[in-house]
């Protein structure tokens, strides 16, 4: 009689094994998301209540992280001026893959109340890919956390693949960045 504990070894191709490992990786990844908070605008005020005891982001395995190279999520909270966008692109390109971008508030979506300003961009996803938007001006902590849960779902279903898009359509993103900023390289007295 065959043991029920024994399962026959199946022949898997390399792609299938890779996929399985990715699924394992995604499981751990989505349960330990580390944030890099790029607090550009007023939506950053919603993060203290989301992180501290009232809503406690830590229970979802999320926490703040100090440097872009250690973080999984780039959290853009609020409007982005051209000067900030230039630094944001620097930061995004330093992060290691897989990386996800969450846009808080209505400003990264369509410009929000700054839609007609000369110094503020209107759509963030023209310059870097955005996986989850949380709409609202400002979004309350419930919606912020809901956005993160949506991102976890996205990682599970492999729909949060902005980092792949950035790699595949790199020329398009670079062209958009160039149209808005002229040049992404920072020239100022503090960097020279």
């Amino acid at each position, binding site marked *: 009689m065959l043991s029920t504990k024994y399962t026959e070894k199946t022949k898997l191709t390399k792609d299938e094994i890779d996929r399985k490992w990715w699924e394992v990786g995604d499981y751990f990844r989505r349960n330990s998301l580390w944030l890099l908070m790029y607090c550009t605008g007023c939506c950053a005020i919603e993060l203290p209540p989301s992180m501290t005891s009232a809503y406690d982001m830590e229970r979802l395995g999320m926490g703040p992280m100090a440097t872009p190279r250690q973080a999984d999520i780039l959290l853009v909270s609020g409007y982005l001026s*051209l000067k900030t966008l*230039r630094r944001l692109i620097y930061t995004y390109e330093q992060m290691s893959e897989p990386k996800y971008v969450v846009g808080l508030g209505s400003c990264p979506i369509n410009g929000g109340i700054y839609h007609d300003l000369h110094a*503020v961009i209107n759509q963030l996803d023209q310059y870097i890919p955005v996986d989850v938007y949380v709409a609202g001006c400002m979004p309350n902590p419930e919606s912020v956390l809901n956005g993160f849960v949506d991102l976890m779902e996205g990682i599970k279903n492999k729909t949060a693949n902005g980092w792949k898009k950035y790699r595949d359509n790199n020329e398009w993103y670079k062209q958009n960045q160039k149209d808005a900023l*002229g040049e992404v390289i920072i020239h100022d007295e503090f960097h020279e």
Partner: protein
Amino acid sequence: MMNSMNNIKEVEDLVNKTVKVLKTENIDKNQVAFEIEKLEVHLLLMVLKSSGWIQLSYLSAVDWPDENKFEVVYIVFNWEKPVYVQVRTKIDREDPVMESILPIFPGAKYYEREAHEFFGITFPGNPDYEKQLILENWDDIPPLRKDFDPSAYSARKFPSREYPQDFSVKDPNNKTLEKTEERKKRAKALRVGGKKQ
């Protein structure tokens, strides 16, 4: 109260003794503004600095396109007597040149760079007033001039999102509010164990 009025009187006497004042404006009980000639600004600021107004709080400009003038405003503050003094002067808008006040207030360096960036005023005497400070790679007329149109610039430079459909809560066909009410009622019912109220 009495004291601050005395302070303002004292400033007015000092300024009227030093330069020709075109216009005086009492803004509030501890702020007073003087409009003077362009060439006398340095003299007045020097006198004010030696009489205790040692801090340059702000330097900026106002655009008056109807008069074809820029108004440069210097605000100085005294730590002994609580009076802000605004020194205003009007300069030509077509060829805006204002001598730098760097020898009097070294902290004016960055304010002058900012005023150059946002209004296009040149400050001879400041070695790097032309360096960029806040705007980077700016490619239009200075943005705080009144004839600059920020929304046209934004429309030209930043693509705005297109929405295939309009959504409005005031639309009679939009059932969002009713659905929200239903959901609230359902949530309330669940809170009391699903019993009918």
